[in-house]
């Protein structure tokens, strides 16, 4: 399993993700500057990390989505390759139209950083196969623009095709307004593409991949991806 982590100017979780994947899985991870126009040969997984690409100016993720490297990233996703966007990376995925919807400023209008409970809604994806169904996990969030938005029709379509993979929940698993840190529709924290190969989520699994940092739920996330490949999953869809 070979992972490429794209670095945009202003990315700031690139190192964190690289360390988390390397240390949890012990597999090869290659940093990729946004001006590259091809992925390293044999790339199985592309990660778009968190941060403030291009300063989050205009709209977060907007300029990164138009970076040179994105042509290769989009092609990888379109042919079924695994593609993961975390936080700012999720914003890049919606701005690239690889995932539906948009991420708007938090309803509080301020940046919000704290640990956060999530309910895992799907355990049949390459990214979540090692969680137990409806498992409650704790991944922290840290974003100013994480309010997931879709117009009602599309939202229904997304829910109908079971595209929601993570929802903000209470520690006991209720999906309530009180558990919603940013005003996202239906408490949505992470969604997957129709092909099941492109995942975007606002919370940060890489921040809970070591016990010294206060949590290890993130390891299950990385292990899912490894186990997908070990069980013969091909990075071209399900």
């Amino acid at each position, binding site marked *: 399993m070979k992972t490429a982590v794209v670095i945009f100017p202003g990315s700031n979780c690139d190192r964190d993700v690289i360390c988390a994947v390397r240390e949890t899985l012990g597999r090869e991870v290659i940093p990729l500057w946004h001006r590259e126009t091809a992925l390293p040969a044999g790339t199985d997984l592309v990660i778009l990390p968190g941060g403030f690409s291009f300063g989050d100016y*205009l709209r977060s993720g907007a300029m990164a989505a*138009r970076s040179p490297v994105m042509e290769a990233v989009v092609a990888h996703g379109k042919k079924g390759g695994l593609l993961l966007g975390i936080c700012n990376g999720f914003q890049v995925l919606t701005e690239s139209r690889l995932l539906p919807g948009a991420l708007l400023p938090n*309803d509080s*209008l301020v940046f919000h950083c704290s640990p956060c409970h999530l309910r895992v809604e799907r355990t049949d994806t390459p990214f979540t196969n090692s969680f137990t169904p409806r498992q409650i996990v704790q991944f922290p969030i840290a974003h100013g623009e994480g309010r997931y938005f879709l117009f009602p029709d599309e939202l229904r379509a997304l829910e109908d095709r079971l595209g929601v993979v993570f929802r903000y929940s209470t520690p006991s698993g209720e999906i309530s307004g009180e558990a919603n840190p940013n005003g996202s529709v239906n408490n949505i924290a992470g969604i997957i593409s129709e092909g099941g190969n492109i995942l975007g989520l606002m919370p940060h699994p890489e921040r809970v991949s070591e016990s010294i940092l206060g949590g290890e739920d993130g390891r299950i996330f990385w292990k899912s991806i490894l186990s997908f490949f070990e069980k013969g999953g091909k990075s071209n869809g399900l």
Partner: protein
Amino acid sequence: MTWRIEVFIQLKEGVLDTQGKAVEHSLVSLGHTGLKRVKVGKYIQLWVDAPSADQARAEAEKMCADLLVNEIIEGYTLEVEAE
């Protein structure tokens, strides 16, 4: 010839304008009770070299589609004038 193009971007109806709501709330509590509604959007100015106003407009529209506007949630209007 250089043209100045003004682009006015705002959220589509149906997308909750939280910023507008917050501004509205603060202004009312500051005593501006005649205020009925606020919408907050973006005001972008572009200076573009183009042979004609129409071509400048076409170029600006392309910039909106390419980057400046997220059509899923935003709409916009343009105005072109000679610099």
